[in-house]
């Protein structure tokens, strides 16, 4: 049997749950299990602590860390060492765990020992003193600070001794596990905002598929490739997804030829929401997700949103609606989408973007414009003609 690696997982919001907590934990376990297929993940909840055990084989540490750091529902995790309940073995493990960090960053620390197994011969205080002593002996530049330590080391004596340290702590996305809130359909463009919107909703537990509107040859295949790349980058956060690529050219040209230039963008977005509703219905998504942020562009004013919302029979969630662009960019950098989003293969714009778009459209007048397009047939054709890209785990 392969050796096993142990991780302590910190849950955030799940801990606030009451009787349904186990439902959330179960979903979290399922999501992690999917990501760590082949490493035989096993979970153990011990006195409020959530432990994950995986096979300790080549590459398993990197794979586990990549999986956990993109799994919403967990706030942080740290590699944990498990030893026999013997003070010498514990001291050795403490040095093995903290050594690589303290040898580069000799900082202040505190050892927090807890002894659930009262038969262990040393008291919690004595365990702290013994292990703190060996750290000071090994790394004389470190110092003890019991009030505001830079590094906290935890030792728990239970069935075995468990040792972990804040120096090994890696952040997770927080929030709630993907899948507890049902399924949505993310309107993914090649920009900065929509991947962040998808990520945000994933941290609220929403499973998502994504939809992209391709207007070849007016938008390039490079632009489509960029969207596929973005979908791949956010896939781990979303616990996998399916990307639907809608052939939108015919509909776009129809809008262009049969409506006033100032209304093109609004009608285009209305049609996109209509198609997204059709696709959502097919894939059993109960909500749409967009990267809109209030007042960012002409089609994101309250009046414009009122109109495009009216195309949807299901709620449209806009997690970025009140965020500053800088905050969105910060998140895009954190999740690794920013560099791809800013590649210069954006929508080919000039043909279809009005020079003077309507900023405060009248909903009734716009609805009349849409009705006069008589475009439903083309929208249904587009929805049925989707290219399907499977990015599930």
């Amino acid at each position, binding site marked *: 049997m392969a050796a096993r690696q142990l991780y302590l997982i910190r849950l955030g919001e799940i801990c606030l749950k009451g009787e349904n907590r186990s439902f959330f934990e179960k979903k979290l376990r399922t999501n992690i299990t999917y990501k760590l297929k082949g490493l035989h993940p096993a979970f153990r909840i011990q006195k409020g602590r959530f432990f994950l055990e995986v096979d300790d084989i080549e590459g398993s540490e990197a794979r586990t860390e990549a999986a956990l750091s993109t799994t919403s529902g967990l706030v942080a995790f740290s590699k944990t060492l498990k030893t026999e309940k013997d003070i010498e073995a514990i001291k050795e493990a403490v040095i093995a765990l903290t050594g690589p960090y303290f040898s580069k960053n000799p900082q202040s620390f505190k050892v927090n020992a807890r002894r659930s197994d009262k038969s262990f011969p040393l008291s919690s205080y004595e365990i702290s003193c013994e292990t703190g002593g060996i750290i000071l002996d090994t790394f004389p530049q470190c110092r003890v600070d019991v009030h505001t330590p830079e590094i906290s080391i935890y030792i728990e004596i239970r069935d075995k001794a468990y040792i972990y340290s804040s120096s090994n702590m890696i952040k997770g996305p927080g929030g709630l596990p993907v899948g507890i809130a049902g399924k949505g359909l993310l309107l993914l463009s090649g920009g900065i905002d929509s991947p962040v919107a998808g990520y945000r909703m994933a941290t609220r537990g929403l499973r998502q598929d994504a939809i992209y509107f391709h207007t*070849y*040859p*007016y938008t*390039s295949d490079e632009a489509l490739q960029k969207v596929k790349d973005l979908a791949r980058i956010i896939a781990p956060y979303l616990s996998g997804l399916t990307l639907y690529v809608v052939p939108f050219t015919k509909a776009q*040209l129809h809008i*262009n*030829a*049969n409506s006033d230039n100032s209304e093109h963008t609004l009608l285009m977005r209305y049609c996109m929401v209509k198609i997204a509703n059709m696709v959502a219905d097919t894939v059993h998504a109960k909500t749409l997700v967009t990267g809109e942020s209030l007042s960012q562009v002409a089609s994101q004013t309250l009046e414009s949103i009122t109109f495009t919302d009216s195309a949807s029979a299901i709620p449209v969630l806009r997690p970025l609606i009140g965020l500053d662009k800088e905050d969105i960019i910060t998140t895009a950098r954190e999740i690794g989408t920013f560099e791809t989003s800013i590649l*210069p*293969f*954006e929508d*080919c*714009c*000039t*043909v279809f973007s009005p020079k003077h778009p309507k900023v405060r459209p009248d909903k009734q007048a716009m609805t009349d414009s849409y009705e006069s397009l008589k475009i439903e047939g083309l929208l249904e054709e587009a929805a049925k003609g989707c290219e399907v890209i499977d990015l599930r785990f």
Partner: protein
Amino acid sequence: MERYYFDWAASSPISTEALQVYTETALQHIANPSSVHSPGRAAGAALSGIRSRFASLMGVPAQQLFFTSGGTEANALICNSFLMKKRPIHLVISGIEHPSIFAYIQRFKQLGHSVTILPAPGGRITPESVASALRPDTALVLIMSVNNVLGTIQPLEQISAVIRAYEQRHRCRIHLHADAVQAFGKIDRSHYLPHADSISVSAHKLQGPRGTGLLYSRKPFLTPSPGGGQESGMRPGTENLPAIAAFYQCSLRCHSNLEADLAHAQSMKDHLIMELASRPAIKVLTPPQEHASPYILGLSIPRIPSEVFMRVLDDRGVSISTGSACSSKNRKKAQRIFLQSGFDQRLCDGALRISFGPSVTADDIAMLSRSVIEESDRLLKEMG
């Protein structure tokens, strides 16, 4: 799908003859031309022979020829040489230069030199604009011979006369460098060679191999990078003898057939222009025959973004080049040559470049014009 290639100004297909010379030379000369053993000396002698033949083909002294990795490096040798001047200098540069030269403006400014950028109405620099830009501290004038996007031939003879007169009047020395990458072997050398102090040439625009070119400089220049002493110490690095041999082969062929090729290419270009004239929506940007290379045609279909049109033709098996990219971030940069030539934004947005070589046939041109006309008709109708 059969492919039709009309992007020779970017890179031309290597000829069988050039490839053969490359292979033969590579197999025959295995040694470094700088090595002192007999295979090395043989390679050195071969290189020296090619240099002499190049010199007599161009009518210049062999010691003023320096083989480089291509046009970009040849341009860089001159720019870097002037960048190293201790005293601040003034340089005059045409607004339609290739990026391998134009990108140096920022660096010159950063190092305290001053720069005057000349506009080029209709794609041509006027001698008057050069005359008004010259200053007593002007040390370098950079004006290409044939523009790479519009194909316009610059009046280097008149520009040179203006510079020489200014030098005499002000007792100063001004270096005139001409990027001749789209001119060498393609138009008569009397347009550029006697007038410039240095020119840059690239082999792969002449159906030669990529990664080789030359700098001809009648004036000494400072070498920016010390090294193994090759190319009289001016361009260190082991010489690419097989590529240089192939480069000479295609240069010789181009110059031997120059007049016949020119006449053929001109008739092909005229035919293309005539065919395209049936569609008022297609605007030819390149000026008439006497001021332009027959191998390059700049045009624009103002309502169709150039990137879209390039893509549509590509799907039909026809390769042309966009005059610009659609990405808004780089739009101004990509459209610089058109904007500096005075074309309005609508023309810039739809700008395209068609370029071909001497082997182009009437059938190729018929296919091209048919594709351009049919696709532009279709797209313009689609777009309403």
